[in-house]
């Protein structure tokens, strides 16, 4: 494979006594969509800020396009489009003005940026909101505008920190669609998320992070293959009985997780397992057979769920 765009070795960030990122190694290659999956506080955003040359590492090495962000901040940031977790649009300006001035911040010419604004308004489906004040936009529109803004400098790497947190399902799907298009155009995407469906949808390859460390790395499919079974049977006996029933069912499947609200049974064939359970005279209140997901991978690796 060619040289990685981003390469980190033993990357560590401490805030006082607290270690936010604990010696992580990863490589990101051109054109791929790379994810950081983990719960809040896993160190994903901190890692993103170090890559974005707006935070200084405590130790380890990182190179972005062959450069050290500590020494070449402005030059590295010229390659990046950043979509922060918290929108930081310019509330005093209109939608189009936000895009325009952001391009100017990169030193781009007025003429170039003006052409870009029209193109990006179309991309973000915000043409009708062109002259609207930013504060009057919906959450989904603000997010799309933030992404469009990050594209104004035609970056090679687009970094998205929790891109769909706080959005309703429809807004999320519109946004995912836009990100797919960028991926098709060959933009390298860096995404942090605590939504396993988002990671499965968008990422070619990801690292699963918890408490500042990498727990696993691979494609969504390979992670599921390595850390979970093909299917999961979710059954509920009522919150006071899940624990007790879990203990009785343990021998019937490869692995079992007893959560407060449900029991997860890992198996290659969920329907067959459910029949066996009924045959053994157990009567769950509800049952659901589904494909294993990254959520199950995370549960396996850490014993905890992603969203707590």
């Amino acid at each position, binding site marked *: 494979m060619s040289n990685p765009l981003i390469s980190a070795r033993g990357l560590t960030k401490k805030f006082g006594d607290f270690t936010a990122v604990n010696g992580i190694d990863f490589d990101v290659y051109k054109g791929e969509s790379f994810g950081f999956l983990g719960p809040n506080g896993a160190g994903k955003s901190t890692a993103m800020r170090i890559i974005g040359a707006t935070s200084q590492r405590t130790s380890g090495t990182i190179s972005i396009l062959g450069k050290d962000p500590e020494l070449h901040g402005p*030059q590295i940031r*010229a390659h990046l489009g950043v979509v922060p977790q918290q929108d930081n649009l310019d509330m005093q300006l209109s939608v189009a003005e936000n895009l325009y001035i952001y391009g100017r911040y990169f*030193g781009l010419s007025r003429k170039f940026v003006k052409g870009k604004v029209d193109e990006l308004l179309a991309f973000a489906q915000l043409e009708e909101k062109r002259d609207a004040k930013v504060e009057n936009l919906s959450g989904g529109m603000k997010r799309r505008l933030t992404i469009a803004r990050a594209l104004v400098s035609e970056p090679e790497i687009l970094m998205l920190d929790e891109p769909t947190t706080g959005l309703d399902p429809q807004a999320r799907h519109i946004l995912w669609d836009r990100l797919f298009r960028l991926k098709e155009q060959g933009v390298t995407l860096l995404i942090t998320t605590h939504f396993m469906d988002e990671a499965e949808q968008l990422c070619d390859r990801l690292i699963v992070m918890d408490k500042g460390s990498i727990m696993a790395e691979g494609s969504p499919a390979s992670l599921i293959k390595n850390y979970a079974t093909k299917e999961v049977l979710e059954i509920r006996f009522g919150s006071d009985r899940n624990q007790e029933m879990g203990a009785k069912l343990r021998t019937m499947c490869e692995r079992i997780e007893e959560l407060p609200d449900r029991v997860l049974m890992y198996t290659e064939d969920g329907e067959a397992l459910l029949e066996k359970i009924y045959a053994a005279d157990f009567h769950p209140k509800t049952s659901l057979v589904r494909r294993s997901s990254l959520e199950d991978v995370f549960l396996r690796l850490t014993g905890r769920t992603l969203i707590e």
Partner: protein
Amino acid sequence: MAVAIAEKRVGKLGERVYSGRVPQLLERGFIAFKSSTYMIVISGFLEPVLYLLSFGYGIGKLLPTITVGSETIKYAAFIAPALLATSAMNGAIYDSTMNVFFKLNHDRIYHGMLATSMGPLDVALGEIGWALLRGFSYACAFMAVIAPLGLVESVWGLLAIPAAVLIAFGFASCGMAVTSYMKSFQQLEIVNMFLLPMFLFSGSFYPISVFPQWLQFTVNLMPLTHAINLVRGLCLGHINMALLGHALYFVVMIVFGLIFTTKRLNALFMK
């Protein structure tokens, strides 16, 4: 293209914190001004005019002239330069405290700016530059009011405009440094607690020679006193070495404020 632009600065002084984007930040100021902030600017201009009308006319009736050194001048001509200096200060302080605080903590605009190929010194100079432009336009507008009224005694008074910019520069760069430490909106009140007494006691409305020695000494340490003495000296044509001293006070404020602001912005954004 953005990359080629950024690469041009490699090897130049301050390349890690500065990318030469002050004009772009001023451009943002103009766009925002057109659409939303013009009311604040108008009120900033009206304030000294209202003071001049109320005090110059009101007190001017009771006290038509005032003696400064060996010269007797109209009362309104005594306070006009002080109001010019004060409005330069107020405009600069408003921009560098209230405005900066909101952009920093509420709208998080600087976070967005610093994710581009700009650096913290660009942001500091851009914001301060905007405060200066405002200080400059206030000074010109106020001058256009007081000169026809015959309240500027000397042609040296023209230099009061660049002096007002210097004053605004000093206050803006220190104001921004102070604001970077503020954690809440309420803490900004501390700035006002400092400004109001300074305005009232710095010799705006009467010479500070009426104060007891210890108070005169304290007042002479305050930046606004030097600002007023500088502008008043120029407007009255009292040109002497003391004016250089007053100007130097602001040069020190500027250097000190800029160093601090850049350090603080680096600490805040490069955590």
